[in-house]
């Protein structure tokens, strides 16, 4: 099946998957706690609780509530976020942009470092560089993110004062417009080097923290794949033809070793999104993860439902992209078969 046909087919079944997802999300939202828990106080009388229930349509039957919610979703109304005291759709783009910016920055750290180190180690199997890389990689996988984050903060924020926390210096952030919500991109669009530097400066610590764990996984996968590929006959053939070792590695072995690694990278993006909850809390990063954690702790069901629905969609899209990239890298893969 051609890639284009495959994409069309996947996109066409997306609505069915989304309806199923929305039903699950709505059901979980209703059984997972009181939908108005965030607004309730002990001192409230039953009449006052009833007023709030009426305001949020909770007096209707469950099917009516579902269709009202789903209708709102279709109209782009995901409800009202209690924890942020604003409509979800007013907040979500900014929060999403912040999380994606962090996740992409972390992915850049993880992919560039992971592939480089994996290649470095794979080409030097069972030698000292390989062992050191293994130590680095296993440490990354084993180190709890929250602990690593705090260590980095103690060193680079408190003691050295090199890097700040948060997403920006408020004065600099407010000095430019934010058409995309992605601070680095907006700074470039505004032509403000000061803002761009501010954005990068604030990104480094959380991106390194979040990227470190993913680096470890990518490094190990890349190293193993490359080691296998270097034992393949086609590599010997390339060497026999007199191809320089550098070209054997880059043009032949590494390209093939990337195929399983890309799958891991796709899954790793999910890891980055999940890990961003902890990193966003510790680095005071105003993204989706921190918002969600706050919503869960305070019982803000509208936010939880919006988040779960949204990330479900995101994962569907990312999975689709990974499949397509996979097929592009390995022409032997037949999509949809």
């Amino acid at each position: 099946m051609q890639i284009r046909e495959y994409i069309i087919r996947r996109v066409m079944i997306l609505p069915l998957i989304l309806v199923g997802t929305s039903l699950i999300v709505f059901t979980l939202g209703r059984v997972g706690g009181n939908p108005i828990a965030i607004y309730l106080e002990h001192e409230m009388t039953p009449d006052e609780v009833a007023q709030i229930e009426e305001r949020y349509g909770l007096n209707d039957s469950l099917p009516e509530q579902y269709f009202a919610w789903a209708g709102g979703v279709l109209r782009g109304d995901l409800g009202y976020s209690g924890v942020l005291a604003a409509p979800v759709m007013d907040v979500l783009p900014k929060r999403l942009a912040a999380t994606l910016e962090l996740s992409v920055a972390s992915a850049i750290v993880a992919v560039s470092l992971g592939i480089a180190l994996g290649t470095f180690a794979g080409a030097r199997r069972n030698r000292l560089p390989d062992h050191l890389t293994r130590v680095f990689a296993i440490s990354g996988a084993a180190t709890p993110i929250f602990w690593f984050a705090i260590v980095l903060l103690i060193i680079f924020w408190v003691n050295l004062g090199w890097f700040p926390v948060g997403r920006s210096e408020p004065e600099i952030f407010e000095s430019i417009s934010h058409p995309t919500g992605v601070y680095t991109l907006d700074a470039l669009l505004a032509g403000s080097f000061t803002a761009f530097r501010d954005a990068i400066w604030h990104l480094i610590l959380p991106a390194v923290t979040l990227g470190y764990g993913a680096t470890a996984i990518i490094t190990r996968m890349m190293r193993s794949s490359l080691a296998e590929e270097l034992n393949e006959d086609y590599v010997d053939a390339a060497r026999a033809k007199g191809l320089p070792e550098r070209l054997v590695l880059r043009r032949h072995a590494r390209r093939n070793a990337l195929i399983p690694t890309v799958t891991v990278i796709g899954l790793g993006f999910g890891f980055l999104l999940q890990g961003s909850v902890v990193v966003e809390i510790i680095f005071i990063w105003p993204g989706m993860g921190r918002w969600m954690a706050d919503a869960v702790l305070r019982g803000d069901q509208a936010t939880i439902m919006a988040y779960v629905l949204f990330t479900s969609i995101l994962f569907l899209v990312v999975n689709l992209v990974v499949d397509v990239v996979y097929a592009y890298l390995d022409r032997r893969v037949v999509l949809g078969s």
Partner: protein
Amino acid sequence: MRTRTNRFSRFHLLLIVAVVLSLVAAACSSDDSTETSAPSATTAPSSDTTAPSTDTTAPSTDTTAPPDDDVNNPGVYVHAADDDPLSLDPAGVAAGEAGETIILQTYDRLVEIGPGGPDLIPGLSTAVPTVENGGISADGLTYTFPIREGVTFHDGSTLTADVVKFSWDRALEMDLPEGNSSILADLVDSTSVDGNNFVVTLKDRNAAFLNSVVTAAVASIVSQEGVEANGGVVAGQPNEFFSSDVIGSGPYTLGAWNRGENIQLDVFDDYWGEPAKLDVRIEQVPDDDVRTLGLRAGDFDSIETDPTFVTDIEGAEGVTIFAEGWLLEPVHIGLNLDIREDLLPDGDTVPADFFHDPRVRRAFNYAFNYDNFVEGGLSGQGGVVPHYLPQGMLAYDDSLPRFETDLAEAERLFTEAGWWDDGFEMTVLVEEGGIFEVAGLVLKDSLESLNPNFRINVAAVVEVQFDDAHAAVPFEYATWIKNADPFADPAALFAAYIHPDGEWGDVHKFRNGYQDADGIAALIEEAAVSVDTDRRVEIYQELTQLLFDDPMWVIPGNEKALMAHRSWVQNFTMNPLWPRPSLKFALFDK
């Protein structure tokens, strides 16, 4: 080619080793120096032991640690908070909610609680009404507030007595269930305007009206023009504009509210009183560790402080811990006199009438290890509370009776009540983390070490689960732990926590256990309406003795008012009677 590859590997190997070594060196070298370089603020608290009112004129910081030469964020006061508001509308904010502190800084009220304690100072009223100055009628029902002239709101409109009336009437008309308008509705019979005076007539005399109602967030004065231009007043419906924006007359305007990130307050140049010196940024920092690190880094000027992490910041360079006065919100262990056995958690064996017997309630009070809680849970930053008046409140006296750990007396009471040999098992509901969970564990340790037949299960749950269970009627646990709401006057405290038909008296059915419920109710009601302070003191002290013999709560202790701040902050003070974090930023400089 292989040679190039090897060069590449050596270079990167060296680079990695260099980076790792520098990280290790930095980690090992720095932190210890800050721990030892400055005297401990809590071991040498001489500056902060002065009264809060003194702190407003003489910086509390200068003698505990030398001010740093470099001030971070000049011109802006940065406070790290742990909670974001749900609403900024005085009519829509719940008592104790994070929006209250923004309302405190950006709106004015007719009278204000001063920085030095419970004393009232004029606000938008030029005088604090008293019987002597004619502001309170002889029958104690009518209050007259002369309205200050020359006050402008943030939108440029002018304050008048009519605007004050509009503002109070607005809160009453909106009557939002999540708001606090009921404290007005319960007391106020009518409001009127007489020239430039705002006149309030009460339904009944109330001793706490000025301290607890007129100073509350719901009584803040909003711009009438601002309301009418932004949605007006709709009964039962929140005002979207005022939920997220501010048009008050306070020393700060709302600069920006980046939800879940920070709130920026700008100095209001046309403020009628002493203008604020610094803009303010309130950062939302939910993690305790990050708040303490930010304070040490100097990026935060003050942080929401909890006794559980005071030891993390004691002695840090450039940091002062303000520990003066007391919070008026002692930790409470609730004893449920309305136990529904079918609703209790699995394993609980206590019967419905378990706490009806005052000997059992007294035995719990004698069994509790107060020293462990104060020294452990509160890190020594607190004390034991008399049963039932907290330190700093009207009628408090050091000689009032208070429970002390007395295991022999606890054993005697449990034996007399018939529980010593049979034992019991029950669950105490607490919010996870922090001092409440510690109090639960101390209760468990106290009772289980007293008698192996006693078993206490501490159900530590997240905030939303606790709030849900805490609001449930009937209550589904035999016991629970939380702090009391802070009240400026004992009338409100006793009404909510002691009155047999009050907020908790009704939920826990105190009438099932009080030896003289009607007598206690009568005393509380008399003290609530009396304008004779001496008589009120007499009543509350009498009640305290009665409640020592017939307690409805175990009071593990009370926290000191505690706030860690950078030593460069001048004029630092806090008042527990102001909404959390109990700060008025307009007083500060750095």
